[in-house]
């Protein structure tokens, strides 16, 4: 959670509160003003938070291995168990590769969205 909170909070702090007020004087209710003005502007902060949380969650193998239960088995732990049960098999190698690609894909999508939608269009 703190990894999410920090970027979002700083994004909030950097935003001029009169932007949301301007939206309200133009006829937007509080909720509409938040959706159309505030959210897009703190968007980069939210995405950065998501990205951080994702990276950290993905890396927390040691913690996970102590905490997991039979009902919610993380992919990484399942793979770890497979390794011990069957040794290095082609299927195992493929699964590891897919996990790597998956994490890269998430990263690329998020960076792509932040970069294209926000970094060039917005002045902070």
């Amino acid at each position, binding site marked *: 959670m703190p990894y999410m909170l920090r970027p979002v909070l700083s994004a909030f702090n950097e935003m001029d509160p009169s932007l949301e007020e301007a*939206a*309200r004087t133009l006829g937007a209710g509080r909720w509409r003003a938040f959706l159309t*003005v505030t959210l897009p502007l703190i968007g980069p902060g939210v995405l950065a938070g998501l990205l951080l949380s994702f990276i950290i969650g993905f890396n927390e193998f040691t913690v996970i291995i102590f905490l997991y239960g039979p009902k919610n088995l993380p992919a990484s732990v399942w793979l770890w168990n497979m390794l011990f049960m069957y040794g290095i098999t082609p299927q195992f190698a493929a699964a590891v590769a897919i996990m790597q690609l998956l994490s890269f894909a998430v990263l690329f999508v998020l960076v792509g969205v932040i970069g294209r939608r926000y970094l060039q269009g917005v002045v902070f």
Partner: protein
Amino acid sequence: MASVKIEGLIKRFGKTVAVDAVSLQVADGALATLLGPSGCGKTTILRCIAGLAEPDAGGIYFGDRLVNDVPTSHRRIGLLFQRLALFPHMRVFDNVAFGLRMQKRSRAEIDERVRKALDLVRLPGFEQRYPRQLSGGQQQRVALARTIVTEPEILLFDEPLSSLDAKLREELKTEIRRLHLETGKTTIYVTHDQAEAFAISDKVYVMNEGRVEQEGTPLDLYVKPASPFVAAFIGANNFVPGTAAAPDPSRPGALLVEALGCRIRAEGGAGLPVGSPLVLLIRPEDIAIRGGGEPGPDEAVVRGRITGSTFAGAHTALEVEAAGHTVKVSVYGPERFALARSVGQEVRLGLTRSTVVGAGAARG
């Protein structure tokens, strides 16, 4: 169309009272200015009118309708912010169209009205730019277009020109006055700039520490300031101590005042007993540098010595030591060139008008 009326408005922030029982009334279609130093509560009043701040007491009426509980989005107002508050993630078109989209207008109507609004502020063809790609003055115009495009009943301006340089300010001042005359909307304008207030207003409220010190037309405030604060806030001034000397024989009810070692005609101060001390306001532009010869019938002449002189183009600002006081004098005529470097020179000052702005001892 609607008039705006405020009755007994009080707003506190913690222990400080930002607005202290202010009442005012702006007629339908008039342009009124709240003028005062920063922190005098003028912006807070504007925010209360807009519904962005909640008053602790008092009523706000648009026409006959009490609007205290109406949310900002339903007050049909347009507010031009000091920091403009253009949406940085939207193009100019979307910024201006925002209010119309909130009103769920048709696409064709939005296109048409945004185009008209941008024409009105003289920015056609800028629809696809982002705000950061515009100059300060252009951003100002976009903000203005966004404010007026929804045709609000009441326009509110919160020091919209304070971030601009002097030349742009001059230009946009005229623009705002022109827009007001063209649209005829009730407008309330907040500023700390006296010249700005005078240039655009029908009526000015001078504010100090959360209260209205004086209300009136620019001419009223200049000619008959009700307190030293108002006088000091409007234009440059000399405050000199004086005593009521005698009733003026040529103008019933008016006074002659003994000050700077002579008798000067004064406005105001009616009813002060002869011999009572008072504070006299003499505007630097009301003092003439005169040659020799007899004084005119209503003129008092004081001898002095120039101790400071600044040439400012349209006028020369002098400081003259006279009768133990330093008096500021602004010279606008052709003699301003000769006086541009005149420190040490002996002069004669011609005084024809002054205003009593307070009874009691001088405040310096």
